[in-house]
């Protein structure tokens, strides 16, 4: 194994990990903090990718700009979904089994709708930075990976600040710990959860834009990400954003090494294998609470 190949694989893994952090942060909020098993999350990410694709293809807008523009729309979508979920499952005290089936159905519906509208062709975006890269000695930094990674880190930092410094952010953390106590502090737990869930869906707009910059997208790509997001979320310890970042970097590095030294067709199994092992041996994750 040559040193420069090793270092390049390591750096590619770190860049990939930064992107994975953006993909997972929404799940860390909805699943980790709110205990809502939103397996439809990757479906909304793909939806974000397709919106970025349309804006880029028709109007020539930069995908990341599109991601920022549609943030409010995704926020609203998340609020609506939470309301439906709350009215039909949480309030009635239904067993979580049906909530799971509900999100599984949503995932399926978004995927099939996208197939019906766009077909199963791979779509990609055009932006000036996609083909360029920075070379530092033998280290190669493709901008198509570097830019999503940096913006993703910024997004994570902002979310972490929001969750720890603002009133609503702290209320979101509190709702995970003790809903009744929060109610006694005169905060409406349903409203707080709705805001948190809406934020988690809003992150999909950004993650979707990153995804289509990094790789061409077709509707069923989302499925590969189900395993990745939950693997990272569980690996990092549920509901902790720094944990999410560590988990994402770890998975990125492991996948990058697998792809470099064994071939890319083994990469999907890595995430799931890691997830199975974590679940079997350390369910509370690296930074478990």
């Amino acid at each position, binding site marked *: 194994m040559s040193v420069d190949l090793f270092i390049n694989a390591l750096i590619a893994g770190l860049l990939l990990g930064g992107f994975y952090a953006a993909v997972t942060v929404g799940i860390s909020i909805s699943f980790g903090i709110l205990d809502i098993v939103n397996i439809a999350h990757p479906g909304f990410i793909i939806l974000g990718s397709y919106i970025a694709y349309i804006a880029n293809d028709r109007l020539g807008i930069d995908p990341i700009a599109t991601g920022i523009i549609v943030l409010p729309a995704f926020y609203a979508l998340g609020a609506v979904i939470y309301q439906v979920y709350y009215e039909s499952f949480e309030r*009635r005290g239904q067993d979580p089994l049906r909530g799971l089936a509900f999100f599984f*159905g949503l995932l399926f519906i978004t995927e099939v709708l996208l197939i019906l509208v766009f077909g199963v062709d791979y779509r990609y975006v055009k932006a000036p930075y996609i083909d360029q890269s920075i070379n530092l000695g033998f280290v190669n930094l493709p901008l198509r990976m570097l830019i999503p990674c940096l913006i993703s880190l910024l997004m994570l930092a902002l979310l972490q600040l929001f969750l720890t410094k603002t009133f609503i952010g702290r209320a979101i953390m509190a709702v995970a710990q003790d809903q009744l106590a929060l109610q006694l502090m005169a905060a409406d737990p349903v409203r707080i959860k709705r805001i948190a869930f809406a934020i988690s869906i809003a992150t999909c707009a950004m993650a979707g834009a990153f995804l289509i910059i990094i790789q061409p997208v077709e509707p069923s790509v989302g499925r590969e990400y189900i395993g990745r997001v939950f693997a990272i979320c569980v690996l990092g310890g549920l509901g902790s954003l720094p944990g999410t970042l560590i988990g994402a970097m770890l998975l990125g590095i492991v996948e990058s090494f697998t792809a470099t030294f064994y071939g890319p067709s083994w990469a999907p*199994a890595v995430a799931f294998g890691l997830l*199975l092992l974590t*679940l079997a041996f350390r369910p509370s994750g690296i930074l478990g609470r």
Partner: protein
Amino acid sequence: MRSWLFFLIACVVGAAVYGGVILLHNEYYFFAGYTVLQFIVLATAWNILGGYTGYVNFGSAAFFAVGAYTSVFFHKTYPLPIPVLIVIAGVVAGIIGLGMGYLTLRLRGAFFAIATLAMAVVLQTLIVNWDYVGGSRGAYIIRPREIAVIGNYVQYLFLLMLGLSIIALTVARIIERSRLGFGFASIRDDELAAEAAGVPTLKLKLIATTLSGALMGMAGAPFPYYIGYLEPASAFGLQYAVNSIAMPMIGGTTSWAGPLIGAVLLGTLQQWATVTISSAANLLLVGVLLVLFVIIAPKGILGLVESRRNKKG
């Protein structure tokens, strides 16, 4: 009703179905009917774990594919008659079910569901990288045109699947009325209380995953002969996972009749939609129905019937 009596009645109904399809004089009905029957087996198998014990399995497609690839493997090494393959596939898938149970059943609820999804992808990657059974290129299975006694090969496959669905339904009904079934129900209602009351929950859950996995594998075994060409993406298709969840949920998860009703309704509807609209549209239909039913009628069709009966009485 005694179980053997139920089995006999099921056999009579099965024979009537078979006779009815022969009278239609159209091979298409055997072809379409096979798919519906296959979904009866899958839905019933899913319900043994998902409906009776309350553990959601998203990996149905994996067990199904294990069954299908067992057939492909033996087709290449040492061709065996399909009934033997069904038994072998059942054993292999059952062992995988047991293994998955050991790894994941200490986890409650959502984690188990995610782990099954993970297992499906791991298995798919293994198959994609396993060249002997075709890898990502897929494998061709040339099926004989004719078979002794019955004649038409599709008719033979139909008959096999009919037999399997009768067995699956009988097994599900026996479980429901036995100590095993009450144990399962206690896990579903309150696992902690069940364990405190001395129910051997881990053992029961392992029995449920093994049985459920074995039946799904058996449903998959004849599939390569039916389809003629098997590739990982079709064997691990999301439609199996979605259908085997949607059918019991729509029919009702608490009794053997639920998956049967759901599979017959949804299966027929899908066959109709595939022919008249498009195959993507029929999947959309399943997704929408699943979401509507879990929101509006959480106990499925059986639940609706029951509540209407209660109102009258």
